[in-house]
């Protein structure tokens, strides 16, 4: 009888621990990191957030300097995401991305990516983006081919003005496409490429 009581006393905390563990949010389930880990954007939290804006990136190299206009080595985009509940499942979001580089001209047009669904959004807390950063993504359509693919973006608001400070990066592994700037010397923080036009705005009251 004593042994049964002892077993019950041992089993109870284990059972409670198992229940607590099972209730703990599995963030990786809603926010899968595609590919290898990055130097920054490794630590995330589910929290209410909103980030909006758009602009231009000159990648490669993705620094604050514009490439010569005739080179067509630039990308333009608009993107926003909003997670009001802070559960990493955004209520709203959209991405439009155009890569004007000749090598990404597909079927006679610049590469054009258009989001279909936004499935996750999480705040990145290990960056040096002064006003806030987010990692978010979902699925998109490659407008040139009709192909659908998963994507993720790394979104950085590093103060005003956006040009020369804020950053943005995108990765679409299924089509071998990425605009990432993994240079630790680059402001504001890797892997985001620095904006040469436009602005990103993180809204702190949604934090």
């Amino acid at each position, binding site marked *: 009888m004593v042994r049964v009581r002892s077993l019950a006393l041992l089993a109870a905390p284990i059972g409670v621990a198992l229940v607590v563990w099972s209730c703990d949010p599995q963030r990786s389930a809603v926010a899968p990191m595609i590919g290898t880990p990055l130097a920054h954007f490794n630590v995330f939290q589910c929290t209410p957030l*909103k980030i*909006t*804006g*758009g*602009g*231009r990136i000159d990648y490669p190299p993705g620094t604050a300097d*514009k490439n*010569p*206009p*005739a*080179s*067509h080595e*630039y990308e*333009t*985009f*608009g*993107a*926003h995401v*909003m997670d009001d509940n802070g559960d990493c499942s955004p209520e*709203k979001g*959209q991405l*439009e991305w*155009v890569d*004007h580089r000749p090598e990404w001209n597909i079927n*006679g*047009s*610049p590469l*054009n990516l*258009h989001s279909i669904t936004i499935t996750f959004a999480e705040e990145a807390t290990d960056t040096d983006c002064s006003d806030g950063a987010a990692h978010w993504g979902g699925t998109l359509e490659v407008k040139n081919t009709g192909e659908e693919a998963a994507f993720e973006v790394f979104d950085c608001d590093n103060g*005003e*003005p*956006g*040009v020369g400070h804020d950053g943005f990066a995108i990765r679409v592994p299924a089509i071998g496409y990425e605009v990432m700037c993994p240079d630790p010397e680059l402001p504001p923080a890797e892997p985001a490429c620095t*904006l*040469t*036009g*436009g*602005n990103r*705005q993180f*809204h*702190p*009251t*949604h934090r």
Partner: protein
Amino acid sequence: MRIDTFRSTVRGLALLLPMTWLASSAQSQMHAASTAQAYGISVSTPTVSQKSPFAVLPVGEAMATDQGQSVSVPGFVTAQDLFTIVTGDADDVDGSNAVSTATVGIVNLLNGLITADGVVAVASSTVGDNAVASNAEGSSLGNLVVGGVEVSDPAPNTRMDLPGVGYVLLNEQRPSGDGVTTSGLTVNMIHVVLQEPRLGLLGQVIGYQTVGNIIVGSATSSVTR
């Protein structure tokens, strides 16, 4: 006498007070606003009116896009690979922003009088705790040739005459707002102003009148605190 003065004062206050209430009420009801629009090509003459592709930020929404693989307005302009993206957010607490982009690939105006290969117009406006500002950073013109002359990186509002046609404004930038509670900017990368001579009684040219406009790559953004 004193009673009359008192009554006049009361009447005056009765008239003035509601006005101050109305003014303060209107001020308190001002909300943050964000507007954005962009288009690739616009032709406006007495016989032609066309704007394409054209994106306008809907009220309460955060983004809109439009695009066209090619656009042709015979005699005026042909263009390829046109994309417009507008984004914005009006937030009473955190501040507002608006960003518009218009990009055009190969463009040919007035049967080769002006050509370019890579037009980018970007307008960005932001209002926050410490700043209300707009800029055209990111705008550029690639391989621009005007009347046989190569033009690289024109300064804002560069004007070049087009004999027999009118003139062209390159990298036209038109700011708006008071810089305190509002700020806005329109960027037109190529703006051809079509003109015809005005003739006097003896047939002499006494001036010119504008008869149309052609704009390639236009982005507009504005925000209100």
